[in-house]
């Protein structure tokens, strides 16, 4: 709930009227009205792809709206480019930080508005100003550190300082908690409150209900490019917000029978692995997945899930420990060997990993098994086409064309091609990572149903997701990952969002 009261009379800082933005045939923003009050924390809530980021990019001058008007402090403005937005007093912290890794903190903050003496850079003075600013708002940074050497949380502080240094009155934070650890999220909350106390206004873009209730004064819900409602956050419930966000009463639940676990298919023992920066990201992880059960891995992003999965699928070499599939040791084997051992993989990033976007659907149907599509050394297109047709009809891919480039399909249909391909391989173990990220509700349901029926067909399924709902709905057992370790195992039917949430932040279940 909102922690601030409004002692001053309410003044309107920003008003959007009928903002519309189209990308080809897609209407990303459909006549959106929005009012932001001076000094509030305003949450923009919506599913992935609902049009939140597009709206904010319009406000920041990165996109030009096709229709609609913007009023800033009561005066109509046309925001032509980011520089103009900055001049008005609008600052934006993008979901993917806009920082230059090889530059220092001070260089990043002052870039474009440098401190000079006689037209030369005056880095001493710049350093001093950054320090002043960081003290004033309690945003601790070292001006001389290079961005590439500091943590993600610190990078976010640099981003906020960048906006404040330019005199931002309105700060737009795009999905600010997605990459943060629980402590950093806590810290961010404090920072936001401090900023508001000093007269700033904040818009936070999010799809997380808790954040809205914890941080925001008011919330505007956007669904499929349209504004649904603007509400006071105080007094709202997660269920009500979810209904508004998704557009129907219940959050997704999946009907399923209790699991009948069989023999052990995947066994992971004392696994250790490092991340790209050479830091140990997976620490002594051990668990098993049996045939006929779905094991979910819950956790805040960046707690070692990606590295763990990369080890299990052959995309990363573990530093120690063993991975066994059907009794066969596949530790550190190539992706091909692991796939041949009976592992299917729905990857986290469907566009970078799961599909070759410039291949046709038929060619993509062979990805992962292309050698099996050869006849006496010759690649058989007919076999690829047959497989593609099987996927298209079995998994309702639209449009049903095997000769289209994968690039031209929508995200949901791309994911269906991947899910279909992997399921039709009949793997003993299916590893599904964020299988529904960014998809609309229909596609989510479809994929969930398929995973459950695969389970019932006797496959072992390992599901990794950042969405607690997804884990709780699907998993028979839930493993919680925190700082590279499995810190708890919870039976699916006993899990509560509160309990899991605590575990994910390093708390204990009894707390």
């Amino acid at each position, binding site marked *: 709930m909102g922690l601030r009261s409004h002692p001053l009379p309410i003044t309107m800082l920003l008003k959007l009227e009928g903002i519309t933005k189209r990308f080809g045939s897609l209407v990303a923003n459909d006549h959106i009205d929005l009012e932001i009050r001076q000094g509030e924390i305003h949450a923009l809530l919506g599913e992935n792809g609902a049009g939140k980021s597009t709206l904010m990019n319009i406000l920041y001058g990165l996109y030009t709206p096709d229709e609609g008007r913007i009023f800033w402090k009561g005066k109509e403005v046309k925001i032509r480019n980011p520089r103009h937005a900055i001049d008005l007093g609008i600052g934006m912290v*993008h979901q993917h930080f*806009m*920082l230059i890794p090889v530059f220092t903190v001070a260089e990043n903050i002052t870039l474009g508005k440098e401190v000079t003496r006689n037209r*030369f850079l005056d880095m001493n003075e710049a350093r001093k100003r950054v320090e002043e600013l960081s003290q004033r708002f309690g945003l601790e940074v070292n001006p001389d550190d290079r961005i590439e050497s500091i943590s993600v949380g610190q990078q976010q502080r640099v981003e906020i300082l960048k906006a404040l240094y330019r005199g931002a009155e309105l700060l737009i934070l795009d999905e600010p908690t997605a990459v943060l650890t629980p402590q950093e999220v806590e810290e961010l909350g404090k920072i936001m409150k401090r900023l508001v106390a000093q007269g700033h206004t904040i818009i936070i873009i999010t799809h997380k209900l808790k954040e809205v209730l914890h941080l925001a004064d008011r919330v505007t819900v956007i669904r499929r490019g349209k504004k649904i409602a603007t509400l006071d956050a105080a007094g709202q419930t997660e269920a009500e917000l979810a209904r508004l966000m998704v557009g129907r009463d219940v959050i997704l639940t999946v009907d399923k029978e209790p699991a009948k676990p069989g023999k052990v298919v995947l066994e992971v023992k004392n696994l250790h692995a490092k991340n790209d920066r050479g830091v140990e990201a997976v620490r002594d992880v051990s668990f098993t997945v049996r045939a006929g059960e779905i094991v979910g891995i819950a956790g805040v992003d960046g707690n070692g899930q990606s590295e763990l999965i990369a080890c299990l699928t052959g995309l990363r070499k573990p530093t120690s420990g063993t991975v066994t599939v059907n009794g066969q040791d596949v530790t550190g084997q190539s992706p091909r060997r692991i796939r041949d051992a009976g592992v299917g993989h729905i990857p986290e990033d469907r566009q970078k990993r799961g599909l070759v976007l410039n291949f046709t659907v038929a060619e993509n149907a062979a990805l992962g098994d292309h050698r099996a599509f050869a006849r006496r050394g010759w690649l058989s297109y007919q076999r690829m086409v047959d497989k593609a047709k099987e996927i298209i009809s079995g998994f309702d891919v639209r449009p049903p064309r095997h000769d289209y480039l994968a690039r031209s399909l929508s995200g949901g249909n791309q994911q269906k091609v991947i899910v279909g391909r992997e399921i039709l391989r009949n793997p003993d173990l299916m590893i599904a990572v964020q299988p529904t990220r960014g998809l609309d509700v229909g596609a989510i349901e479809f994929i969930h149903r398929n995973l459950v029926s695969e389970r019932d067909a006797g496959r072992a399924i390992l599901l990794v997701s950042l969405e607690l709902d997804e884990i709780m709905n699907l998993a028979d057992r839930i493993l919680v990952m925190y700082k590279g370790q499995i810190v708890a195992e919870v039976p699916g039917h006993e899990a509560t969002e509160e309990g899991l949430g605590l575990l994910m932040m390093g708390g204990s279940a009894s707390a």
Partner: protein
Amino acid sequence: MTVAFGTILLTFIMATLRATTPLLLAALGGVFSERAGVVNIALEGIMLAGAWGAAYFSFISGSAWIGLLGAVFIGVIMAGLHAVASIKYYADQVVSGTAINLLAVGFTEFMLNRIWGQAGSSPEVASLPNIGPLNFMIYLAFILAIVSWVALYRTPWGLRLRSVGEHPLAADTLGIDVFKMRYAGVLLSGVLGGLAGASLSIGLLSRFVDGMSAGKGFIALAAMIFGKWNPLGAVGATLLFGASQSLSVIFQLMGIQGIPTQFFNMLPYVLTMLILAGFVGKSVAPAADGIPYRKTN
């Protein structure tokens, strides 16, 4: 040993400085272009065209100084083509650079024929003076190296130029005009590449010779990498490469046999491959080097 050691050393230093000058100027050009995020393998062609421009404008005006301006003018035109193709029309920068190199060969050959009606080389033209024992261009190259370093690392402009080569979108969100900065970087490589050409035709010589760049643009490219995309690094690298070229001459003078001259010629390239592979130090390109920047709106 037949020649006095002091004489040999002096000859070696002079030869090294002479060999270094065109390499250094072109390498500095490369630094500006690539720091802004545009790969520039067109240095060879810019240099060749610049050498012709210097000779031509010196020829028609009778003044080497006008020739120098002419070299800059022609260099900027060549670089401008590369800039428009790779910045405005998102061309693959290596392909565009290749086209410029080919164009320079065709253009200079064509103009040799057209203006002087002869193949091979131009008539003698006015050349730039020596200051003391060394040609004007040698001093200019080293001065420009320092100026370039100051501009890149001590001015807001330099910070911005480097930012668009590292993370253009980030620069864009801060209101920095990515396209403008990239044009500036590439056009400066035209200025410096043109000067490098002038140092060949009206600095070290006093005529244009067909194909006179003879791969120096590519050595400059190697030097730019060896010098870690830094103007002062480029000074060190081009001095090293220049020395390796003049060393073969010195060895002959000193009567040292056994090391074929071709090995000295190969040295810059081998060293560059070694440093790139991380066997000798490490050199990392600007992060967005070679990637066209596309704006969405």
